[in-house]
């Protein structure tokens, strides 16, 4: 029983950290209907920047993170301004590919400029375990899960502000939003900026877990799965999807691995996604698009 609880709790915390990566994807999707395949690259770039600001420029921890978040926000804003805006009206798949190209650029530029070898994320988290009775919980994950919850909550609050409501309107219908005087372009650019900043914070957490190098960009796959599972346009959906993926892959692989003699973690996640898509085609919280003939 404690084994199960430990697997479930750690899985849930990791799931929340997946959800945080995915929330960056959801944010952009909500405002512009674009799925940003460079989100993993953003996370990597954010982590690298935090490292560079702290280890190379000697900024403090908090100023370093804030500076990185600001830089990533600017990068997100620029991305929208220079690339995505020119693609408005093009088929979705082209835009997807464009963001993929961006991801390749980031994966070359950032490690190329700052060094490809793995770097430690300079934040002081003790390795000492946290014991909850017999259950061992990872400190980094507790922090990660907590930050993820706070960030997603902040985003949810943000969507109740004026800018956030504008964003929701834009996501519903570009033309209609235009017609009622919402600055659509500015709103979309804002969502890119915010998702860039979120990527920087995510980069800190995941950098603390696995070190800072190109492999942070691989988080994209997990994040994409979580985002799609959550329905792509719902923050609460993303949190729930993150929890589901995290808990399932942790618990099931914990019990099944010894019998299979292999790591089933990724496969479990894949099966969860496959089945969910079959059973609930628009994700857990997605809006079903009703087509009119």
């Amino acid at each position, binding site marked *: 029983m404690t*084994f199960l609880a*430990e*697997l479930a709790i*750690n*899985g849930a915390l*990791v799931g929340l950290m997946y959800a945080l990566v995915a929330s960056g994807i959801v944010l952009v999707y909500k405002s512009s209907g674009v799925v940003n395949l460079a989100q993993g690259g953003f996370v990597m770039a954010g982590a690298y920047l935090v490292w560079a600001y702290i280890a190379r420029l000697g900024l403090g921890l908090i100023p370093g993170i804030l500076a990185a978040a600001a830089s990533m926000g600017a990068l997100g804003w620029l991305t929208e301004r220079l690339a995505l805006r020119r693609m408005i009206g093009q088929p979705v798949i082209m835009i997807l590919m464009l963001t993929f190209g961006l991801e390749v650029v980031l*994966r*070359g530029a950032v*490690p190329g400029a700052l060094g*490809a*070898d*793995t*770097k*430690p994320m300079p934040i002081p988290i003790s*390795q*000492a*375990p946290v014991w909850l009775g017999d259950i*061992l919980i*990872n*400190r980094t*994950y507790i922090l990660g899960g907590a930050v993820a919850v706070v960030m997603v909550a902040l985003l949810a609050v943000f969507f109740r502000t004026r800018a956030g409501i504008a964003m929701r309107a834009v996501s519903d219908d570009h033309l209609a939003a235009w017609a009622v005087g919402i600055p659509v372009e500015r709103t979309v650019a804002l969502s890119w900026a915010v998702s860039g900043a979120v990527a920087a914070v995510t980069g800190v957490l*995941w950098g603390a*877990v*696995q*070190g800072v*190098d*190109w*492999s942070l960009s*691989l988080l994209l796959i997990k994040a994409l799965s979580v985002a799609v599972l959550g329905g792509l346009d719902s923050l609460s959906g993303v949190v729930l999807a993150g929890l589901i993926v995290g808990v399932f*892959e*942790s*618990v099931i*692989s*914990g019990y099944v*691995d*010894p019998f299979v*003699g*292999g*790591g*089933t*973690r*990724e*496969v479990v996640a894949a099966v969860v996604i496959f089945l969910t898509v079959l059973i609930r085609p628009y994700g857990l919280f997605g809006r079903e698009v009703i087509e009119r003939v």
Partner: protein
Amino acid sequence: MRRWVYWVLVLVLAAGLAAVPALAQQKVITFGFPVDYTRVYVFVAEEWTQGMVDYLTLMNLKGGVGGYTFDWRVVDTGNEPQRGIEAYERFRREGATIFNFISTPVSNAVAPRAMEDGVILLMPFHGRSDAADGQTFPWLFSLGANYWSQATVIVQHILEAEGGNLRGKRIGLVHIDSPFGREPIPVLEELSRRLGFEFQSFAFPSPGTEQSATWAQVRRFRPDWVLLWSAGPSQSVGVREAIRNGFPLDRLVSVIWLDEKDMNIVGAAQARGVKRFEAAVPGREHPVVQEILQKVYQEAGKGFGKIENVGSTYYVVGIASVAPVVEAVRIAVERFGEPVTVDKIRAALEMVSNFDLNGLMPPITITPQDHEGGGMGRISQWDGSRWVPVTDWMSAFRDVVWEMVYKSSAQFRQGQ
């Protein structure tokens, strides 16, 4: 804007196409190092290649070997087999006769070609472990302890640390779920039968940056010793999980892929006690490394990479993986006379005997049967700032290793 993009494309492609093979000069041995600088092997490629090239540069600065100097071609493959094959075909036509890809998938993909073309393929600490079987793979050379040998050396260390008796002990293997990660399992199973310890393996899937569920299982097993079998970022994650789970670090032994940088990511002080398999002496004290620092970096200014890398774990692995080939060239000139051809180098490699580069690496003896060279290594331990050897160079349970090698190479021959 449009024109600009076109011009860049045209220029770059033209430059690529115009890369005419340089005329093969007289008395030059050319190496091909198409390595993975950007993907899975990022953690090792830069330092390893630097070690190889710096050593060859040193040899050139000293006037070459037997009148022969060395040349090399380096390119990134991104760990993609088709890019590796392209680089192989290109470099081979530019005269390269000895290759090291530092990538298991690429090496394995190129191996059939190398064997057909008669090109030497070095596979130290990667590629096919059964390349040790020189009869089946005349053109492949392991030149260092393969993963099966590493597993036996580690178990030998455990056996000695436990006073010669492992009966009733529990040994766990935490490994990445890939062919590489699973390689030691049959060896450890066989040894558990012989020595009477209880063995269990715990896999985590690639990229292995999340291992909490795996380690929860490890804790349930209550192992006395844990072997860590992965590479890259997942290694530091594994060590961290061990610390967190309260596992004594001096009972955690890693495969060869654990270095100073991993320890710094974990936290140099917190990681004190971790052990690993070691195949070359890290540090700058060794005379060869000193010579490289002095002649290559300070006098000639021809260092291939950052000077900070010199003497790192993977840097000396780089030296150790070309030094036997240089030795073979010397033997070839001596025994077979000029001109030195790839066939002569291959034959000479099989004559390299008890070569240890003044103690930088374990003594290696290559024969037509044994392309691994004895499979020796040692265990070293992190003392909080550097790696300290805790055993001598050794090899162990050779019969188990060779049984694995022959079984695997027989499977390979079936497909020929």
